[in-house]
C-alpha cells in the first residue's frame, strides 16, 4: 500500500535478516564511548563567573603545577552521554526485579521530592542546632517509628548502610561486655548468613564459629547450645533467614544465648517480611540493623547510598554511639560528645549525624503506608513469594521441602541435573525474557541457589507473566534446549562478559598512555 506521496504504509517485505549497523548502535540501543574518549580538557559545561577579586594567593608553595587530565563536556553532550548509559541499565521501573535478599520494591517519587526540600537538602550538619530543630526532630520521629515497629527501646541512627549498622551493633555488644569486666572473643554465625556478618565480626577481632543448618533450612537450637560457652560474645542470626524461612526456634535460641551471657544480634536485611506482623523485641533480639534502602524503600541507586540504623535492647541502649537525639523542655538536641549522665557511648561511626537524605525518604514511605499499609505490604510480599513458589515448585526444586516461605522463595539446581544448564545460564536466559535475574549462588548452603523475592510491588498480572516465563524456560531446559541458555543473554546491551580476564589483567581506569598505545596498534 502506498499513500498519495508514494510513502509505503504497510510493512512490505521487511524480513528477519540480521543487520550489522555502521554506527555500532542498534536503533534505540545506543553505544557510548567513555567520557575520556569524547571530552576535552579545555571544555566546560558550567558557565562560572570570573573570580571577582583575584586578591593575593594564600596557597603558599602549594599551587598545583601540572594539569589534571579530566576532560569536560558541554551540557547537551553530558545529557546525552549519561542518558545513553542509563539505557544500558535495568531498574525496578523497567520490570520485575526479583533479587532475593535485596528487596527491590517500588521507589515512590514523593520520597525523592521530600528529600529535596531545601529545609532538608540544603542544611549543613554543623549549623547552630537552633537553626535545624526540624531536622533533629525528624531524626527523633523516625527513631520513634523504628522503635515502635521493632519493639525495641533505643536506636542508633548514624550507621550509613546495613554492614555499617552491623558494625555499630557488634561494637555496642563489645562495649557492653567490656563494661561488665568480661572479655569474650567468639561470635556464632549460621552458614547461611550474609557475608557481611562474618566480615563485621572479624573486623573488630572476633573469631567466627559457624553453625550448620538442619534439614529444614533453619537453625537448630541444639547446635547453638553445643557452641555456646563463656567465650561467646554473640550470635548473628538473620530472621527471616536467607533461605526465606522464619527461624521457628528463635525464642529458644535467644534464651539459650542470653543464658550463656551472650547477646543476640539480628541481621535485619529481611525485616520487610515481618514489619507490622512481629516485633524483634518480642523475640529476644538485642540489636538489629534496619536497611532503610530495603525495607523502607529509599532507592538502591546502583549500589547505594543506604542507611542502617540499629535498634538496641535495654542492655545495649547506654552504649549508643554519638551523636544521638534527646528531647527536653527546650526542644530537641543532638548530643555530639560523651559525658551525658547515664550514657556510655562506645564512640562515633562517622562524621556528622547519619544519612539524613535517607531518613526523609524512609519517613515519607512510613507516613504514606501507615501502620495498616506497612502490615499489608509485609503480607503481600509474603503472599507473592508463596504464590511464585506454589506456581513453580512442580518444575523447579525446593531444597527444604514444601513449607511456607516468607518474602522470598529459594530453589536449588537439582531440577537442572542432566540438562547441561547451570543456575547462571538460567539467570542469563531470564535477561532475554525481560526480567532481572534472581539472586544466584546465595545462600551458600544450597547448591546452585536461586533466591526469588518478588516484593509487594508486583501486580498479579505481572507475577503471572513472570511465572509463565520461568515455567517456559524450565520446560525448555528439561526438553534439552541447552543452547538457548548457554548462549544467553542474546538481547542485552552486552553478551556474557569475561570476568576472568578482568581479574587476571585488572584495568581499573582509563589512562592517556594506554589509550595512545591502543590507538597505535
Amino acid at each position, binding site marked *: 500500500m502506498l499513500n498519495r506521496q508514494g510513502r509505503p504504509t504497510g510493512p512490505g517485505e521487511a524480513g528477519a535478516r540480521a543487520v550489522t549497523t555502521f554506527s555500532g548502535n542498534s536503533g534505540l540501543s545506543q553505544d557510548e564511548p567513555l*567520557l*575520556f574518549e569524547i571530552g576535552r*580538557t*579545555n571544555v*566546560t*559545561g*558550567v558557565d562560572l563567573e570570573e*573570580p*571577582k577579586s583575584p586578591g593575593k594567593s*594564600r596557597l603558599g608553595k602549594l599551587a598545583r603545577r601540572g594539569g*589534571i587530565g579530566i576532560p*569536560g563536556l558541554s551540557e547537551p553532550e553530558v545529557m546525552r552521554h549519561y542518558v545513553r*548509559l542509563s*539505557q*544500558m*541499565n535495568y*531498574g525496578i*521501573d523497567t520490570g520485575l526485579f526479583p533479587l532475593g535478599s535485596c528487596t*527491590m520494591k517500588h521507589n515512590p517519587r514523593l520520597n525523592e521530592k521530600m528529600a529535596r*526540600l531545601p529545609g*532538608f537538602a540544603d*542544611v549543613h*550538619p554543623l549549623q547552630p542546632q537552633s*537553626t535545624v530543630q526540624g531536622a533533629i526532630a525528624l531524626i527523633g520521629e523516625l527513631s520513634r517509628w523504628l522503635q*515502635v515497629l521493632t519493639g525495641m527501646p533505643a536506636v542508633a541512627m548514624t550507621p550509613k548502610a546495613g554492614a555499617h549498622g552491623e558494625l555499630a551493633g557488634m561494637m555496642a555488644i563489645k562495649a557492653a561486655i567490656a563494661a561488665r569486666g568480661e572479655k569474650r572473643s567468639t561470635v556464632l554465625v549460621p552458614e547461611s548468613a550474609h557475608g*557481611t556478618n562474618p*566480615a563485621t565480626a572479624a*573486623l*573488630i577481632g572476633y573469631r567466627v564459629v559457624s553453625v550448620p543448618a538442619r534439614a529444614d533450612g533453619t537453625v537448630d537450637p541444639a547446635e547453638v547450645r553445643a557452641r555456646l560457652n563463656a567465650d561467646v560474645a554473640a550470635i548473628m542470626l538473620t530472621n527471616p533467614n536467607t533461605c526465606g524461612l*522464619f527461624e521457628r526456634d528463635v525464642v529458644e535460641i535467644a534464651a539459650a544465648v542470653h543464658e550463656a551471657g551472650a547477646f543476640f544480634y539480628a541481621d535485619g536485611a529481611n525485616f520487610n517480611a515481618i514489619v*507490622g*506482623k512481629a516485633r524483634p523485641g*518480642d*523475640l529476644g533480639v538485642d540489636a538489629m540493623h534496619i536497611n532503610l534502602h530495603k525495607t523502607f524503600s529509599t532507592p538502591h*541507586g546502583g*549500589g547505594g*547510598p*543506604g542507611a542502617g540504623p540499629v535498634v538496641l535492647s535495654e542492655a545495649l541502649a547506654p552504649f549508643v*554511639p554519638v551523636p544521638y537525639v534527646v528531647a527536653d523542655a527546650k526542644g530537641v538536641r543532638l548530643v555530639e560528645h560523651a559525658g551525658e549522665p547515664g550514657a556510655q557511648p562506645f*564512640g562515633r561511626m*562517622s562524621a*556528622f549525624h547519619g544519612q*539524613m*537524605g535517607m531518613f526523609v525518604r524512609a519517613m515519607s514511605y512510613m507516613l*504514606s*503506608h*501507615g*501502620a495498616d499499609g506497612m*502490615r499489608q505490604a509485609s503480607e503481600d510480599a509474603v503472599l507473592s513469594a508463596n504464590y511464585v513458589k*506454589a506456581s513453580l515448585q512442580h518444575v523447579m526444586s525446593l531444597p527444604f521441602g514444601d513449607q511456607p516461605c516468607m518474602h522470598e522463595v529459594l530453589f536449588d539446581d537439582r531440577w537442572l541435573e542432566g540438562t547441561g544448564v547451570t543456575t547462571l545460564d538460567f539467570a542469563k536466559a531470564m*535477561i532475554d525474557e525481560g526480567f*532481572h535475574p534472581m539472586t544466584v549462588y546465595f545462600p551458600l548452603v544450597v547448591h546452585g541457589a536461586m533466591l526469588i523475592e518478588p516484593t*509487594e510491588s508486583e*501486580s498479579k498480572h505481572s507475577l503471572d507473566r513472570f511465572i509463565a516465563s520461568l515455567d517456559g524456560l524450565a520446560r525448555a531446559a528439561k526438553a534439552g534446549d541447552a543452547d538457548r541458555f548457554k548462549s544467553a*543473554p542474546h538481547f542485552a*546491551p552486552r*553478551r556474557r562478559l569475561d570476568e576472568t580476564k578482568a581479574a587476571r589483567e*585488572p584495568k*581499573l*581506569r582509563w589512562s592517556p598512555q594506554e589509550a595512545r598505545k591502543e590507538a597505535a596498534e
Partner: protein
Amino acid sequence: MRYLPLSDADRQAMLARVGVADIDALFANVPKDKLLSGLVDLPRAKSELAVERELARFASRNVAAGAVPFFVGAGAYKHHVPATVDHLIQRSEFLTSYTPYQPEIAQGTLQYLYEFQTQVAMLTGMEVANASMYDGSTAASEAVLMAHRQTRRHKAVLAGNLHPHYRETIETVSRMAGNEVVALPPSPTGVEDIAAAIDKTVSCVVVQTPDFFGNLHDLTDLAAKVHAAGALLIAVFTEVVSLGLVTPPGEMGADIVVGEGQSIGNALNFGGPYVGLFATRQNLVRQMPGRLCGETVDKDGRRGFVLTLSTREQHIRREKATSNICTNSGLCVLAFTIHMSLLGEAGLQRLAATNHANAVALAEMLANVPGVTVLNETFFNEFTVKVPGKADAVVEKLAAKGVLGGVPVSRLLPCKPELADLILVASTEVNTDEDRAAYVAALKKVL
C-alpha cells in the same frame, strides 16, 4: 494504599493457588504468641498531599543554607550543583537499579563507576581508585585498616589537625579492633612535628591537607620520613574542590589518599549521604576495601565493564575480606561523576579559583574587624579566625542576625578550652559581595 497493586480478589485467588485459607497460615513459623493480631500504635496510611504537609512542617523549621549569607564548612561545603546533575541521577534506570552484579544489564552503572574511578585517580594524583566508600571519615578509617594489613603493624599516628570526627571514627574502630592510635594535639596555626612520633612500629601516618583549620601542607618531607620507617602515608582531604588548585597528595608521596567528595554534585543533606573517595597505588590494590570496576570484553569481543577483584570482598571472602562494606555511595558517585564531567579540568580550576578568591577576600575583610585575627598563613576556601570571647556564643548571635558565620571549634573539640575562641569560616563560589558585607556588619555588631 497507592503503592500496593494487589486487590482483595487477587489476594483470595493467590491464597487459593497456595492452598491456604488465610495469610496467617503463611506466618505459621512465627511463635503464635509473638504474632501481632492488630496494628502497631502508629498512624494509618496518608495521602500524598497529607505526607507533603507533614514533612514540610519539619523542613520549615530549618534555616536553609541558600536562604542566608552562609559560611559554614568544617568538612561539608555549600556549592552550586548544575540542574543537569539532579535530573540525570533521577533517571529510573540509575535510581532504581541495584549493585551491578549482572553486568550485561548494568553497563550504565559500571561505565560511570569506571569513569568515576578514573576521575578520582586523576584528581588525587594516584594510580587507582575504588568505586567509593560511605564518606570521607569512614574512608579514612578503612585506609588505616588497609595500612595495618599491608605493613602487618598495628599502630597509626594521626596528625593533630585531622578533622576531629575523622579522628574519632578511626579511634572507635581501632579501639574495638585492638589496634593502637597515637593522636597528636591540634595546632590551629598548622605547625606540628609529626615526624617525631614515627618509629618502626608505626603502620601509617594520617595527615589532612587542607587541614581542619584550613592550613595547607607540603607532605613531601613527611612522606620520605614515613617511608624510611617502612610505614605508609595516608593523606586526607575534606574539600575535594581544593584539588583543582593545590598540589595533589599523590604528587607529594602519599600511598593512600582518602577524602570527602560531597562538594562535587552532592547537596549538604544535613551530613549525609555523601561519598567517600579512596585512591592508592597500583601495587596496593589487592589490599583495597570496597568495590572495583574493571574493563573486559564480552563474548563477541566488545568492550564492557564488570565488578572485579571481588575475592577481596565480604560476599566472597566472608571473615577474611578486606572490609565488611557492601552498599556504598552509588548514586552520590553518579552525581559526582556527572558534575565533574560538566566541569572538566578547566571548569574545576575556575571553580577552585573562585572559591579561593572569595575566601581571600573574606579573610582580608574579617582581619580588619577590630578584635578579630585570621590565624592562617595558607588556606584554600576555609580559614580560622580568633574572636574575643566564646566562639560558640558569637556564632549563635550571628545566626540570630541571619548570618550563618561558621563553625565554632569548640563544637568539635569541647575539651580544648584553649581553642574556645576560634571559628572556622568557609567561603565558596555561592558567596556574593553582599554576603561578605553582611557578615562583617553582623560581626561588628555582635562583638
